[in-house]
């Protein structure tokens, strides 16, 4: 997935927010203020956000609007955060595929 650079009448150009660094599974990736965590992860080539509990299958973004709960990741030690509606913040620590046992 790529950040759109070209401008068009349907998608006029925007200036992204400030470039920031976030940590995902120990790796540092660049994101821009205003982006959702899901968008930042996808732009970094990460599409598997969690592993399903029973069948252990990869899951990622689906509804994109906070209702399907498929994009859950751990953010700053808090589990089950929806990446699609969580905005990125500088220094955020994200862990994918790490749901805690309930």
């Amino acid at each position, binding site marked *: *997935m*790529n*950040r*759109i*650079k*070209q401008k*068009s*009448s*349907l*998608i*006029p*150009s*925007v*200036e*992204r*927010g*400030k470039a920031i660094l976030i940590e995902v599974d120990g790796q540092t990736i660049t994101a*821009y*203020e*205003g*982006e*959702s965590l899901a*968008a930042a992860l*996808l*732009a970094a080539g990460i*599409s*598997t*956000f969690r592993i*399903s*509990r*029973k*069948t252990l*299958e*990869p*899951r*990622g*973004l*689906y*509804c*994109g*609007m*906070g*209702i*399907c*709960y*498929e994009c*859950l990741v751990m953010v700053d030690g808090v589990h*089950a955060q929806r990446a*699609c*509606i969580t*905005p990125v913040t500088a220094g955020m620590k994200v862990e994918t595929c790490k749901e805690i046992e309930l």
Partner: protein
Amino acid sequence: MIESFQLAVIGAGPGGLKAANSAAELGVRTILIDSYPQPGGQYFMQPAGSFSATQLTKTEAEGQNLIQELKVKAVTTLVNTLVWGIFKEGSDTQWLVGLYGKEKPYYIRADHLILASGAYDSPVAFPGWTLPGVITCGAALILLKSQRMAPGTRVLVSGTGPLLLSVGAHLISAGVEDVTICEANHFLPKGLKYATTMLGQRKRLAEGIRYYWQILRTKTPYKIGWSVQAAIGSNKVEQAIISRLSPEGNPIEGSQIDLDVDLVVSGYSLTPNTGLVRMLGCEMKYQAEKGGWIPVRKETLETSREGVFCIGDGAAIGGAENAQLEGQIAAWQIAHRCGKISAITLHKKVTGIKPYLRKQQQFGRLYANLFTPPATISSLARDDTLLCRCEEVTLVDVKKAVAMGARTMGEVKMLTRTGMGNCQGRMCECSVSAAIVTALAAEKMRSDQVGYYSIRPPLHPLPSGFLAKAQIDDV
């Protein structure tokens, strides 16, 4: 002290924005609540916060005007705030609305409610639909329009309705060169009889032409009467199988084509987001062409519960313009009940917009007749396809439950755990319902007899410590 309002509008999409502004303009003390970081909903989606746009699209600008109006009309606006429960007990005269946001308030009270919770893409279960890289039209449009990201490079867009054209055109505009669109409904030639209805819909027509031009210009395949059959890949989507459909919606043997893709966008029309109306116990009815289970409403747009109004796509799929008209009608009714306008003024106002509403309803009929997903679309699921993504319940699990005697959504839920996970059934309801109807076809079982999942507070999962913290006497 819990702050009190004459009206709480829940959902700040086109309908909610218009309703809040219209009520506040007449002096109704109004609060508008939305769970997203910015008002606008899906239709009036704004570029992400912290992005600076030098130029807005027409739709973004239209939404921005309504958002600015909130301040002028003194509407109290809470964003990033989820309504998790609405209560009225014993002798309460007001609704108690439970809120979950980053900070207080935890509760507000309101005399009247306008529920404007919008809709989401009807989730269709097909083999591989749980793979990363299969997303909905809504997700694709949020990434494209708000996040300014191109979510794939080789993309299949499959589903039904004008939203497919919007997704396709936005992908093309974002520089995606390999796009295939499959429209499941054979809407030609029967669509031609609606030509005059369409000519009366200048705004929609212009939007449609703009999108279609992108598709024509780039020779993007727009395959009418086709649908995705399966998505394939190990850790993410690598291939999609598409097939031509018979007029009844069944895949035609031998027409399958394999496509190399890294994204499948699924959009089989929309399902009204009815969690809150169900939680409030409002009477519901089943209307497939309006998106499934919808609240029963009077002409005033009030539900079966006094003081609870429901508008826009959250009440019946009708589009953004329809939602705004309905928002005005509900707001005026409430303004009248609050003593802000006389019965005569109310009547004049409502009569004044009736012609516009009728036009929208005409379009609603066109949309319903041409773009209701074919009932056969549920047969894309195989026995081992997950219907419930949260609790990982397959089609065969549901069939077994029916064989054991389950006949309703509630009974299947008890036996299999469908609908008991995080999404609270939003993602599986239509597939499970269809599976029961199909399994009991010999008895001519219908969707309206199968029923719907009941919804109880909290509407969405909450951190366990929150409810302990948000005690009423602590507010």
